[in-house]
């Protein structure tokens, strides 16, 4: 296995955060010309390992070696000098600066001691063209969507990496096309002898592009192998430390569609956001919403929940007309929404896990009707157990949880309000295989309890696994509906594809 010397290697790395051992004696080697997947459950320590590798955190024990020479990684700048380009999980760029600034900050082209803006913008355009991105590079980064920002971060890291490229869940918010472009670039870099570390929860992508996998479990090294020699089943058991209970395949298709639909939305729409649509949902129904990124899925959720006011249409609940103009109105009607972008819409970093879970319920009860500490603790404990949220205790500030575990806390927040109608926008993004199955099981359970659910997801298999009906969106409009036994992966794919062809024809 040690045919080639390690380009970047760590030996016996340990790292603790206030008594909690996030990494415990981990060895990890990246060889030149390989794409190396780093896998593990939420909270296994992947991001922490990356941060130690790139000088964000200092290890408590262990050495980092580059070309076999031990180095003391001082800070992120030092890592960059050594040719390591990184995209961290929290894609952190500078929204207040231009796209070009974001790409080149710290290494702007200079002329006579001054930043040569013109050249910088020209180089930025060329760089982004490789990713099929054509942006106004002099305008603020904040104008662009999360996916574009992610690509900008990747472009920056790739351009900076001399030899090693580290990507922490880069594909979480990319669509298929964007992922393809990224993979093409990674293959090129691999051919040029780069060592690439790739973290993801999409196991298909691991088998598509990675040469080798290393698995972490609870901060320890669980194993490392060539991808080709490791079947998926074994990989999953390596990650979880147990065999995955096979997700029961959908039994929901043949359920009778409930005759009474208490939630009725007629002709709801908003100009330049989503074309008017009708939607009726009955109790115990799960509506899956499929479509490409930017097809109007999130916009639909925002209108239903009153975040964006609808220009047209009306809403009836139990036959009574209601007005939903703000999220408060929606919550009062028994709605819940678990948003897509947990970083800006979801978590409150400095509040504890307990407080983050109780937030929505408290808001619903009104601030004068305070939940007692005992109620809060029991509520938090219940959800930490139910969703398997990995945290040392419920008083930990949520910003110290791993990305996937933060996502679970947001889900818990809305489940705690016990809504009649719950909208989940990408509930499984960034969540590991084990928790993924649990969340699907949870959706099924909620539906059995009579909750009405609307689930937006980019993973079609997942939609197939729990939906009673599926709505397909394209170009900011609802284009069609599939129900019963017609709900299959290929049908949904066909519907998305057929329609895009229709558009291009």
């Amino acid at each position, binding site marked *: 296995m040690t045919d080639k010397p390690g380009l970047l290697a760590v030996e016996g790395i340990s790292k603790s955060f206030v008594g909690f051992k996030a990494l415990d004696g981990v060895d990890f080697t990246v060889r030149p010309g390989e794409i190396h997947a780093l896998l593990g459950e939420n909270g296994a320590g992947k991001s922490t390992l990356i941060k130690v590798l790139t000088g964000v955190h200092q290890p408590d024990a262990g050495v980092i070696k580059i070309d076999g020479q031990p180095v003391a990684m001082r800070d992120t700048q030092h890592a960059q000098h050594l040719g390591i380009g990184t995209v961290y999980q929290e894609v952190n760029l*500078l929204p207040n*600066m231009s796209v070009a600034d974001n790409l080149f900050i710290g290494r702007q082209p200079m002329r006579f001691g001054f930043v040569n803006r013109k050249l910088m913008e020209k180089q930025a355009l060329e760089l982004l063209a490789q990713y099929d991105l054509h942006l106004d590079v002099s305008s603020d980064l904040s104008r662009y969507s999360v996916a574009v920002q992610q690509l900008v971060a990747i472009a*920056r890291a790739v351009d900076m990496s001399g030899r090693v490229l580290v990507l922490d869940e880069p594909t979480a918010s990319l669509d298929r096309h964007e992922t393809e472009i990224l993979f093409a670039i990674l293959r090129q870099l691999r051919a040029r002898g780069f060592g690439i570390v790739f973290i993801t929860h999409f196991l298909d992508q691991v088998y598509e592009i990675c040469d080798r996998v290393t698995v972490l479990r609870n901060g320890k090294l669980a194993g490392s192998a060539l991808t080709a020699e490791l079947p998926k089943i074994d990989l999953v058991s390596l990650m979880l430390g147990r065999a995955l209970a096979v997700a029961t395949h959908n039994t929901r298709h043949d359920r009778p569609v409930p005759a009474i639909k208490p939630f009725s939305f007629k002709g709801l729409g908003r100009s330049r956001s989503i074309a008017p649509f009708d939607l009726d949902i009955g109790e115990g129904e799960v509506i899956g919403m499929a*479509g490409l990124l930017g097809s109007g899925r999130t916009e639909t959720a925002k209108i239903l929940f009153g975040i964006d006011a609808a220009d047209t249409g009306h809403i009836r609940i139990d036959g009574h007309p209601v007005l939903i103009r703000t999220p408060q109105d929606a919550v009062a009607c028994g709605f819940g929404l678990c948003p897509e972008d947990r970083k800006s819409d979801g978590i409150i970093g400095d509040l504890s896990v307990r407080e983050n879970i109780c937030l929505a319920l408290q808001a619903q009860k009104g601030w004068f009707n305070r939940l007692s500490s005992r109620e809060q603790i029991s509520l938090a404990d219940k959800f930490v157990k139910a969703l398997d949220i990995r945290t040392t205790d419920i008083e930990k500030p949520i910003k110290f949880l791993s990305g996937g575990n933060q996502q679970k806390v947001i889900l818990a927040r809305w489940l705690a309000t016990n809504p009649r109608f719950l909208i989940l926008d990408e509930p499984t993004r960034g969540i590991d295989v084990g928790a993924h199955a649990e969340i699907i099981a949870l959706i099924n359970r909620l539906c059995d309890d009579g909750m009405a659910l609307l689930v937006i997801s980019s993973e079609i298999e997942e939609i197939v696994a729990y939906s009673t009906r599926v709505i397909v969106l394209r170009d900011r409009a609802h284009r069609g509906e599939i129900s019963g036994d017609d709900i299959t992966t290929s049908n949904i794919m066909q519907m998305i594809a057929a329609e895009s062809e229709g558009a291009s024809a």
Partner: protein
Amino acid sequence: MNTRLLPLCATLLICLIAYAACVFQFPAMFSTRVAGNLLTDNAFLGIAAVGMTFVILSGGIDLSVGSVIAFTGVLLAVLITHYGVHPLIAFAIALLITTAFGASMGAIIHYLEVPSFIVTLAGMFLARGMCFVMTTDSIPIDHPFYTALQGLFYRLPGGGRLTFIGCLMVLVFLVGIVVAHFSKFGSYIYAVGGNRTSAELMGVPVARTTIGIYAMSGFLSGLAGIVFSLYTSAGYSLAAVGVELDTIAAVVIGGTLLTGGVGYIAGTFIGVIIQGIIQTYIVFDGTLSSWWTKIVVGVLLFSFIALQRILVFLSLKRTTATSGG
């Protein structure tokens, strides 16, 4: 249009309207004499405001500015009048001390992670206290070099005087603009103000930048102190009380966001000039109390902060409408 430029344009518009209104009432205000005085009278304020703009752009605040100006004035007076030091050497000593003072505040802010408000508040008391330790009297400065500098001006057509200190302020603004938009250091300042954690992860030398920003603010406060001492020919411990607040007002009126990351040095220049115009108007009127300056500045500040909130709100709405899946 870029919403980022909107506050700047609003400031410029207000400045022009205010000036036009003044000229309409007192046609004599339309002269190079008034323009020249505007620069001279606000030179120390403008220089200090450039430093403050950098600090606020980085998401911090520097409350020590006024005290450092007074400290510099007293130090110069003591050195020149009591010890007979040549003004140029005294200037160098003063700038060295104020820069080091700013740098140490920056180091405390960065390494001990204390909010800049607290650290510079302490710095404000410390500098003011040092003035009183040196002397409690007002010490006049009478040196041929001072007289020479004060007599140095370029006569504009129409009788206006472009004085040495007025030119110095304009120069400082020009250098400030170049630093902000055409140097790496400038981009680091915006980066730290935009998002400190991100900047750190992107490899921006946050420690060096933070220390540099406060050192620069200290240096410019020292320079403002030198200008102030040239302007008044004296050093007095109780001088320049509250100037830091005037500079903050100029920065905010100039369209810089108090939360950091967004703003322009040029806007601050207009902010300073607006304050100057109001003061000149009051002088011309002759019956108004000079406290009217404060009232008008107060009203302007409120309107600008309201304008900024509205803009931030609008741009947030716009980005959420265009993103998402």
